């Protein structure tokens, strides 16, 4: 836990710790998915979690988003210990996420999908919504404005009215990001945002992630397989293998860490 801020080489200010994992252990019956992991996320940084398949990365993200409740350990958020929570309560605290395998409403348009990201901000009740006067109308206009800014930001204007089901994979990923962003989160969790994309789509996505961090000051925690992307994007990296933390530090530190090299390249057993 650190309270000081510092400025990175490219001029971004990284604030104090906003979220801290303390000795998290997660078990599914007899299987230990995560064993005694601790790390922190600082305000305004891009924090990557990497590791080989089955290392427990997604489980970690699910712990942060409140979907899994760890058997041992504590999650500290904004200086207070977080009690076990339902995912929607976590969302209300300002943590939004995207999913590894896209979870959008396929039959709805892109605009409607992104609007669902604003639901947390809409207070009008069912009757007001149905009559569509006063509060409901005002709210919709306000929220639509936010959503349109995000659509503009992610350059998806051309598909605004297209049903999501008709979109190619790369664009769906972007729509999902838009929806997460619409919630105006203070921490954004991205589960493999670049999986299955080609080089050009990856470059676009990287730019969006950097711009998001820069423009809105969003703290980002992401899981990614593409090492090149991770090393370029992130400020600090946590490396996991078989549910254990084997490295934590800046991309350069991690790159030179012998355990990490072994986990990724394999070790010769004589």
């Amino acid at each position, binding site marked *: 836990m650190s309270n000081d801020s510092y400025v990175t080489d490219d001029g971004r200010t990284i604030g104090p710790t906003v979220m801290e994992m303390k000795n998290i252990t997660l078990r599914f019956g007899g299987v230990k998915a995560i064993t005694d992991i601790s790390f922190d996320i600082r305000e305004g940084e891009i924090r990557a979690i990497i590791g080989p398949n089955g290392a427990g990365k997604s489980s970690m993200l699910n712990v942060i988003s409140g979907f899994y409740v760890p058997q041992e350990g504590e999650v500290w958020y904004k200086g207070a210990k977080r009690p076990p929570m339902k995912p929607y309560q976590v969302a209300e605290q300002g943590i939004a996420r995207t999913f590894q395998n896209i979870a959008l409403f396929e039959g709805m348009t892109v605009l409607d999908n992104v609007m669902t990201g604003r639901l947390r901000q809409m207070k009008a009740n069912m009757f007001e919504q149905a009559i569509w006067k006063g509060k409901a109308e005002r709210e919709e206009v306000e929220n639509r404005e936010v959503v349109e800014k995000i659509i503009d930001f992610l350059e998806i*204007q*051309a598909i605004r009215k297209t049903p999501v089901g008709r979109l190619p994979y790369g664009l769906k990923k972007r729509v999902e990001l838009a929806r997460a962003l619409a919630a105006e989160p203070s921490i954004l969790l991205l589960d493999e945002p670049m999986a299955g994309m080609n080089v050009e789509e990856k*470059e676009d996505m990287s730019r969006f992630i950097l711009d998001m961090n820069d423009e809105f000051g969003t703290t980002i925690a992401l899981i990614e397989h593409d090492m090149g992307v991770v090393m370029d994007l992130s400020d600090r990296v946590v490396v996991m293998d078989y549910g254990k933390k084997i490295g934590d530090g800046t991309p350069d530190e991690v790159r030179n860490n012998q355990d990490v090299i072994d986990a990724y390249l394999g070790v010769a057993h004589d």
Partner: protein
Amino acid sequence: MAQSSQATGGLTSIPALLQRNAAQFADKDAYREKEFGIWQTWTWAMTEKEIEALALGLINLGVKEGDFVAIIGRNRPYFYWSMVAAQSVGAVPVPVYQDSAAEEMEYILGHCGAKYAIVEDQEQVDKIIEIQEKLHTFEHMVYIDPRGLRKYDHRQLHEFSHIQAQGRAAHDELIGELKSRREKLDYDSTCVMLYTSGTTGKPKGVVLSNRNVIESSKNSAEFDALTGDEEILSYLPMAWVGDFIFSVGQAYWCGFCVNCPESADTMMTDLREIGPTYYFAPPRIFETSLTNVMIRMEDSGDLKYALFHHFMDFAKTAGEKYGMPKRSLAKPDMKRRIKNGWRYAMGLGFAMETIVENGIRMAFTKLRHGSKAREHFKAKDPILLNLYRGNLRDYFKYRMGNVLVYGPLKDTLGFGRVRVGYTAGEAIGPEIFEFYRSLGINLKQLYGQTEATVFITAQPDGEVRADTVGVPSPDVEIKIDDNGEIHYRSPGTFVEYYNNPESTASTKDPEGWVATGDAGFFEEKSGHLRIIDRAKDVGKMADGSMFAPKYVENKLKFYPDILEAVLFGNGKDRCVAFINIDLTAVGNWAERNNIAYASYQELAGHPKVLDSIQEHVEAVNRSVADDPMLAGCQIHRFLVLHKELDADDGEMTRTRKVRRVIVADKFKDLVDGLYDGSSSVSTTTEVTYEDGRKGSISATLELRDAQVAPVASKMAAE
């Protein structure tokens, strides 16, 4: 200045026209841009304020008279304002293609010694920063979209809105300066400098004066009776002379509204939402639209499919006669409304009466001669109103088609309100042209170039044909020299090529005649001009017959599945061709025929694709053989290229014209292969990605022989 400006009432510059518009059409819409999903509007009065603030800001920044200000970005009101603001302070706007690579920009900015640049976003800022060290005169850069730029060094970098704010703050000190600079502008001061796309060699900076731009805009607006009520969608590159004339020259002269799309991808949606009345597009856009329509009709249900084809066949004959919009679509006043209402009432009554009458007559006929009547009705078109004869029936049928097919189709394409449409830049396929004309879209051709401030010839309403480019535009004189090259002289004739007196002298003679570099002739019957080809591309075959590559290439390109073709054969004994397939059209065909493919390259090499291209080539050969003068240009061998010709690789200009010499040089091994008779060639080609990185692709191409049609007998008689 005093005499020459009388024709335009003292309005001798674009800023002067802006002042007039702001006074005359204050509350009329001048600019619209879709932003955040909503059309944002600026009236002429607001536009004037915005431009004034920016102009003051530019003075504040240190812009001097005669400085060059580069404008780099897609069509947005801010850039149009920037151009006019630059003019207001006595500077010269230089729009640059926004998709140019950094080196291309370096050449242009270096050549004119631009001190300032107004650019769109981070992408352009990065490009300029990359080349900044080599530009010795460069001082400041203004950007519009601040995204991602916050951490940049802002000593030479400014945000557009800040410049405007500074201008507003310094209003009282600088307004006198601005006014005096604005008043100094006259008919002969430079309006804009546009760089040619450079089909051969480096781009040249064409200097256009206010006279050029305003006279051309005035003449062409009168030619097509353009009013202040037109709506246009500006989506063509701002660095292209056409966009400057339509979106600045004519817009300021007439005072009509310029609409800017939300992004390049939303162009079609925005087009539909705006429904322009005046529309301009290169043939490629029309081709793409038509291809899309045809592909979607293939996927439609039987009824729609039948209706579409029935009415489109009918429209081919009747569209020209019944479909064309009236000369002016201005909003009708009360008197016209009453008149129209009366007409509709009469028409309705008449129609009711005839239907009733027909019904009664049919009933009687059926009663009296049952079988005969059935035959009679069967023999005719199974369409209502088949008792009418000739013209009247066609008229009604076209109206019906309008309700069922043409209207909805035009609406979908965004052409619902088009009153005047132009295509230029390349020849348009007769079938494509006919398709749009028969829908009742008044699509016409014009012939022009940057050096002429666009207009050389244009087709008047009612005299439109696919194979000519029309009669000389107002005030344009044309002569054709002994070699067949077209020369013109007009008020739009450019001042000079910037910093390039040799080129100026070789293009423009002391009397003001400009050589176009195109070969053509006037048709005796109609007085219309017909273009054959670029004069320097026209060559001779080994046997002395004429080699006109464009003529044959255009015939090939009129097939929807051929995107581009390049013909070789100058000085040789026979012709060979490179062909680029159209991925959309061929891809759709492949899907329909269960042909799996993973890439452009794979599809381009598929034997079935080659078969169908071969059919097209042979059909073109037959049609070329009909013309004894050009019969030597038949294609003996051809190949389908493994990559699309691309401007990033230098194979085309930014306006998508093929750079013949570069293509011939780059693919020399393939040309040699075509001539030495080998049946396949393996090759490796360097490609440039959009971000400037290089890569390479290798392929083994199949070279095919095409059947050549026997040449018409005249050759023997000679």
